[in-house]
């Protein structure tokens, strides 16, 4: 029976590619599917591109390939990565230049056509309101502040690149799981309307797209997390997918982490809304029919995926400017560490009020007490904390106010409550972004999708 092994690459922009080496060396993978774009990474890339038109792609794609390509080429392993970001052609140029200098050979494909920011008029003229998917708000309320907008493309253009012999596929925004689904469909010869099989492929892609989170990282639990072996050498998940629509999950021998029913089901439901209708551009997955068979020794077999026909519309995610955040922080030691943080926060509130600054919202948190647990923090020992840090943030439309706000805090060191710590400099204004999810008829986007293949 035909099968193909796909291994997880990065799970976000800035993730480590070190564990990918073990998957290539000892994991038997044919493909690495590497996800460099979280929901708002494109906002970072947009700022890069405004500074330099040749930029706008994820800058960790090239160093990853420089580190791993000789090994990958030796083992015949192909890379599929969405590190193209807003500028796949620019990413290809940077990689091709570096490869030529090294005398390395590769067939590099780019997938483009996701960008819709410049096409809003055309899309609206074609009948798409582009209103906010959840709130129903009109696009006009944010349009002049929109920084980027990309449609999530599916796996088909990636599969076309593979058919044309590419061994590195650089994409723009695609659905994260498409990075895995494409080589699976390509290798196993599945049809693009065999919904149950595509649903299994989507399940695999979803379980691989967050790298170490699919193999024991961030294992959300009390106590059980401490049983995950060897975090330092945690292996990224690998799936061997067979043509009968089953998948065997594993990781490279000798690596840390854990592949089990527990670690996989945590990832399966991660960042999912309705689990009976998990949307992707290629198929809609019902997670309610999946069966997990934990065979022990870091092996889990997954079968039973059911899928419904792909949606008529693609999702677009846009990001728009939504003000500025000012941040101030100061820490205090025992005695009365928490009480001193409260006093400092009241003092800062007074200073902000006296200045009449246009502050829309203020968030007060006590690090060491409630900054992660919020109102569910347990107050039992609040007044006996060894130390506590005050973090106060504001939202304002005025960038100068956000900058000036952070500079209020150092003064407290000499003129506020005693035993301060954390005078480690001032944080400047940080731009805040609102997110704009919306839908568009897929033909309007897919007619612009382009696959270009180039030998280096």
């Amino acid at each position, binding site marked *: 029976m035909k099968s193909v092994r796909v291994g997880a690459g990065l799970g976000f922009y800035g993730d480590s590619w070190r564990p990918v080496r073990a998957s290539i060396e000892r994991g038997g993978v044919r493909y690495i599917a590497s996800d460099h774009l979280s*929901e*708002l990474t494109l*906002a970072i890339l947009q700022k890069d591109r405004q500074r330099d038109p040749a930029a706008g792609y994820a800058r960790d794609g090239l160093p990853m390939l420089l580190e791993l390509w000789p090994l990958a080429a030796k083992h015949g392993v192909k890379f599929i990565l969405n590190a193209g970001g807003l500028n796949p052609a620019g990413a290809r140029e940077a990689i091709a230049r570096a490869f030529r200098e090294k005398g390395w050979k590769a067939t590099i494909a780019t997938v483009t056509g996701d960008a819709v920011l410049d096409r809003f008029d055309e899309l609206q003229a074609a009948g798409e309101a582009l209103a906010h998917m*959840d709130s129903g708000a009109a696009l006009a309320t944010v349009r002049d502040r929109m920084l980027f907008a990309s449609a999530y493309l599916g796996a088909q253009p990636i599969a076309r690149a593979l058919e044309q012999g590419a061994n590195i596929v650089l994409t723009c925004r695609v659905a994260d799981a498409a990075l895995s689904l494409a080589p699976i469909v390509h290798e196993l010869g599945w049809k693009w309307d065999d919904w149950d099989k595509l649903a299994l492929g989507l399940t695999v892609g979803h379980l691989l797209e967050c790298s170490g*989170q699919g193999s024991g990282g*961030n*294992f*959300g*639990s*009390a106590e*059980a997390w401490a049983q995950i072996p060897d975090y330092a050498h945690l292996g990224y998940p690998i799936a061997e997918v067979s043509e009968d629509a089953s998948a065997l999950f594993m990781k490279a021998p000798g690596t840390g982490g854990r592949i089990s029913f*527990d670690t996989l*089901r*945590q*990832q*399966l*439901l*991660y*960042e*999912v*809304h*309705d*689990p*009976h209708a998990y949307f992707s551009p290629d198929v809609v997955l019902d*997670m*309610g*029919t*999946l*069966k*997990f068979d934990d065979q022990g020794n870091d092996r889990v077999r997954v079968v*039973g995926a059911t899928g419904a026909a792909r949606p008529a519309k693609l999702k677009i995610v846009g*990001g728009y400017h*939504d*003000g500025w*955040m000012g941040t101030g922080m100061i820490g205090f030691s025992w005695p009365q560490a928490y009480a001193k943080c409260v006093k400092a926060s009241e003092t800062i509130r007074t200073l902000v009020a006296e200045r009449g600054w246009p502050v829309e*919202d*203020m*968030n007060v*948190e006590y*690090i060491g007490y409630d*900054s*992660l*647990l*919020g*109102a*569910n923090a*347990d107050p039992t020992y609040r007044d006996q904390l060894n130390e506590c840090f005050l*973090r106060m*943030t*504001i*939202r304002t439309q005025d960038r100068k106010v956000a900058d000036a706000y952070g500079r209020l805090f150092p003064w407290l060191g000499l003129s506020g409550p005693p035993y301060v710590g954390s005078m480690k400099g001032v944080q400047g204004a940080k731009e*805040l*972004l*609102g*997110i704009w*999810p919306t839908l568009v008829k897929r033909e309007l986007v897919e007619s612009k999708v382009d696959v270009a293949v180039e030998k280096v």
Partner: protein
Amino acid sequence: MRVPLWKIAHARSGDKADRADIGLFAWDAPTYAVLKREVTPARVKEHFKAMCEGPVELWPLDNLLALKIVLNRALQGGAARSLRMDNLGKAVAAQLLRMEIEAPADLPRLKAE
């Protein structure tokens, strides 16, 4: 008896736009039956009333011994405009594990104590 969820279940959370989402997983089938009965959208909404401004949605998944829970309008508009330390909602699952429910004392994890 009153039992905090961390003693009988595990959980992971994440973000999508202004939604925080949580997977809550029973370690065993008897516990799953209790979670399905006791962990209701209303109870979860009450537990998160300080941060969740929208409705709570919940789907039980018998094949995974899990509940999928979604907190709508819970992230101050989304991770990139949130003022919170936990702007990505990664610790929201930890908050849920502090919720207490009514559970029989003979659940496997409680007997092992």
